[in-house]
């Protein structure tokens, strides 16, 4: 399957410049790319959710609540 490495970052409020810098550094280190698109998504309640290609890294409040519900 062709690896596509487009990065989408979902947050509730826009990231601050410093947060964006940190995120870029992390993306560069892990996936070798700095470019990403941002999406504002109030449904995740808080935190951040990053989608790289077809893999989702979920550090959102909603994700944690879901974990609580299923554990």
């Amino acid at each position, binding site marked *: *399957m*062709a*690896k596509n490495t487009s990065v989408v970052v979902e947050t509730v409020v826009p990231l601050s410049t410093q947060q964006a810098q940190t995120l870029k550094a992390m993306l560069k280190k892990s996936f070798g790319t700095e470019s990403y698109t941002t999406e504002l998504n109030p449904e995740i309640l808080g935190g951040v959710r990053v*989608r790289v*290609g*077809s*893999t*989702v*890294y*979920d*550090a959102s409040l909603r*994700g*944690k609540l879901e*974990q*609580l519900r299923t*554990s």
Partner: protein
Amino acid sequence: MTDFLSEIKKQLAGAKLETTKQSVGTITNFGDGIATISGLDDVMLGELVLVGKDTFALALNLKKDNVGVVLLTENRDIRAGDTVQTTGRLLSIGVSDDIVGRVVDPLGRALDGKAPIAVKTYQPLEKVAPGVITRKMVTVPLQTGIKAIDAMIPVGRGQRELIIGDRGTGKSSIGLGTILNQRGQNVICVYVAIGQKRSYVAQTVALFEKTGSMDYTVVVAATASDSATSQFLAPYAGVAIAEYFLKQGKDVLVIYDDLSKHAVAYREISLLLRRPSGREAYPGDVFYLHSRLLERACRLDEKYGGGSITALPIIETQASDVSAFIPTNVISITDGQIYLETDLFNSGVKPAINVGLSVSRVGSAAQLKTMKQVAGKMRLDLAQYRELAAFAQFSSDLDAKTKAQLDRGARVSTILNQDWDKPMPVEDQVAVIYAATNGYLDSVSLEKTRMWEELATMYLKADEPAILKSIKAEGKIIEDTEKALQKALTTFNDIHSELHL
């Protein structure tokens, strides 16, 4: 109150909340219970995936840039663009000892309106069959209670015996009769109904309940109105339940009714998934579909826990064509077949077994010695009789020897007739067949043969229980028993002179 609060606090503190990594995809195409998904890079073949919030699907096609999944439950709210995520789980069914006596669907959900099945463990639907080392020869008989089968086409525990024939020849009846006969035999039965009418399933369950057979039976039902996916999964769910009891060292009997409809359901799924079609439009792996299922029938060595799974798959032929694709496949996988014929059925032979074409490749090693003693030559004799009977129709005057052979044959084949829902204990079978093959019925008129059989078994049970007990216990007919049986049969014939010509 404080207890409650501290309990909640403790629970919350104990919960692991981590950043999760998950493979996701989006639906690009959806219809007929099949969805095509882009993304989902890490999906495994046969993995359970979550579509939307609560619909599960099974990944069946992994291609270069998309994944084909089949939905396990009906959901009309699915749209293209919906998110799909992997679960890391393979399809499995929740089982426990409580499942006995229940009617479930292939995902283990109760269909009988009673409480959900308590789950002890999950059994995978797809599992590699037990290896060569763990297996053992088939040596213990599985009594079907049907004279013609137990005498001539014996089935052993751990065997795969195909029941094949046209529609309406009594295929299911043989399977159901066998289940009825397993009471007190220490066998768990699993009846898998694939693509059957719901009314038929209800009727079957009612029969099991009436006869008390439900105490040791599980019914797995994917009826004609259920999805093709459900029908495709039903036999695997059945054998998964059987494997749960196998693990406890128990003997299990599984009846797949029927695998023709199973193949048709799989063909539907395969065509919708756009897999290339082959002969009769079945996909290329339709042989493997059945072989991997039937290979899971086994008899395990005691070192590996013992126990067995006996499989009685049923195949429906069209116009007696056993050389069609699916029948030949399943014939070659199984350890023999019971071949039922419309002509025999219509001429009143019930069960309508064609003795010449039916075989059991491993069962004779498992047949009781007593039965082998009395029925050893019956198969050949009966085949000779049928040939002679066909020939004799053309000639009017027959010599005495031929006539005697015909008379004997007619009585033996009448004795093999039996109502499907009246299984017979093996010791009664031995006594009756002994009488028929040794000429004790020669003087009985043909119309009264069935009545003779009924009265004689009643007589033996009431007046000579020692003989039957000895036949069952000894494993073979010892000389004393044979003499006692001869005497008893002569006495019986004297008492009931009204049955004679």
